[in-house]
């Protein structure tokens, strides 16, 4: 495989994965009966966007970003979309995975078959992404209906949100492998809440002044910047950097997940 150096960024157990789709199939089987649970995710964007459109937007007025004047709701909506992608991925890859890992022992049974660690890791992350994509579609639709989409390029927000989901699901699942019990999950909001509040979500990064570099360390900031750029229809080299940041995070997470699952389940 030396002829394909690009493949080296993929962990070895993931490289030999052949059946991650079976994990997705299992999830579909679970949700076949409980699909109304999936609907709950569609209300979140609606409530978020309505509250901003109706309330905050009127109070705050317009925002000037990169030489353009935007209504506040138009400014915040893309950030909400990115945050919602983060939240969905984190939820799926922490609580849900922990239950299956420690209590339901789903993976122990799976690994007694020709399935491998890579199939489990990739399959579970893929599922988180599929579910996230559904919610992002709902979010996008709501934005369009409420008149918050400013450019046709906003459709790019869908693949961007999948990337945000990939990054957070991989890192979320990696942290889950270190959790000892349910109380450890108290730390999850401790991590995601500041990301949500301080990733240039509610005000432009210029407001942070000389602290802007701290904001740039937040992975959500890079996601927010990308969705915002899509909504504005602006392309810039900076976007390549944002994508690079999220991809790095995703693959770093995937490496940790593969190693940790190996040591937790194959011992």
């Amino acid at each position, binding site marked *: 495989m030396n002829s394909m150096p690009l493949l080296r960024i993929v962990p070895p157990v993931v490289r030999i994965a052949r059946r991650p789709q*079976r994990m997705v199939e299992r999830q579909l089987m679970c949700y076949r009966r409980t699909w109304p649970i999936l609907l709950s995710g569609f209300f979140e964007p609606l409530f978020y966007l309505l509250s901003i459109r109706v309330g905050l937007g009127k109070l705050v007025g317009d925002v000037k970003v990169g030489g353009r004047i935007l209504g506040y709701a138009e400014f915040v909506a893309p950030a909400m979309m990115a945050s919602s992608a983060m939240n969905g991925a984190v939820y799926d890859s922490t609580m849900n995975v922990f239950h299956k890992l420690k209590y339901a022992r*789903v993976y122990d049974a799976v690994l007694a*078959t020709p399935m491998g660690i890579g199939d489990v890791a990739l399959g579970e992350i893929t599922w988180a992404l599929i579910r996230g994509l559904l919610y992002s579609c709902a979010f996008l639709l709501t934005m369009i209906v409420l008149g918050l989409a400013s450019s046709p390029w906003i459709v790019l927000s869908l693949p961007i949100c999948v990337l945000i989901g990939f990054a957070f699901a991989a890192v979320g699942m990696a942290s889950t492998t270190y959790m000892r019990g349910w109380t450890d999950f108290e730390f999850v909001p401790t991590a995601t809440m500041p990301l949500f509040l301080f990733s240039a979500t509610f005000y432009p990064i210029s407001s942070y002044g000389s602290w802007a570099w701290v904001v740039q360390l937040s992975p959500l900031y890079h996601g927010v910047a990308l969705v915002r750029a899509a909504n504005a229809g602006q392309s810039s080299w900076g976007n390549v950097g944002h994508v690079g940041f999220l991809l790095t995070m995703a693959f770093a997470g995937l490496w940790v997940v593969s190693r940790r699952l190996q040591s937790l389940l194959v011992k």
Partner: protein
Amino acid sequence: MSPEPLIHATGLRKQFGDFTAVDGIDFNVQPGEAFGFLGPNGAGKSSTMRMIGCTSPISGGTLRLFGLDPATHGRDIRRRLGVVPQLDSLDQELTVEENLIIYGRYFDLSRAEARRRAVELLDFVQLTDRAKSRVEPLSGGMKRRVTIARSLINEPDLLLLDEPTTGLDPQARHILWDRLYRLKQQGVTLVLTTHYMDEAEQLCDRLVVMDAGRIVAEGSPRQLIEQHATREVLELRFPAGTNADNEAYALGIGDRHEVLPDRILVYAHNGDEALAKAIGAGAKPESALVRRSTLEDVFLRLTGRTLVE
């Protein structure tokens, strides 16, 4: 020359940090055989089973299944295995039938084929009427039967059962034994662990007795009893706390004896004769029982401890 063994292990070891769970064991399992690992909790049975199941890398020695090395061909080996783990690992989010179908899918069966086999296997374990039920409300015995049905979905050449009947009531155990016996008659190779001697006697053609990570004896249940125990055993119960005082009565009336916390065992070819001698010498046991020797006695003889504490 006997056929190539299905499982071939030499000097097999498993180490967890400083703790040695399996300390260099040798064994072979032939096709069609029912092979057992008998031993108390912590003897290394489950670690051995997980290594055979290719879900736990070996720490030393060699292990071959179907002539293949688990380290390099784990996937190919697992394709031919059925595994019934010690703790039921059924998918709680799915129904009984779905558990079997998705498991078949993990083995790359087509949906139609997985469905067909699921119906057939649920009939085999007599759970057709619970096919649409969730797993959670099932009794322990039923869950075990679902797990066994699930382990057969890929039509395995080798079925691994880790303490298949631990925690089940007597009736549930007998149903399970019956199903396992049928599988054996169909030519499925069985490897099981147990700390119940009656289970080993019922199901195993050949077994090894394990203690503290080592194999201490090997043979058929009958051979082991003949080699390591007498034909009969006399069990004497004296009032609590007086076993030591009464030990003298057990001397010389049989081949040997063993003082346990609650009773004294006398190993003798003829138990009734031994009892008559003890009474003749003035022993006044609260109760006395003569029975045939079991694997439990073999284990006690080999290790000085009972199987189930």
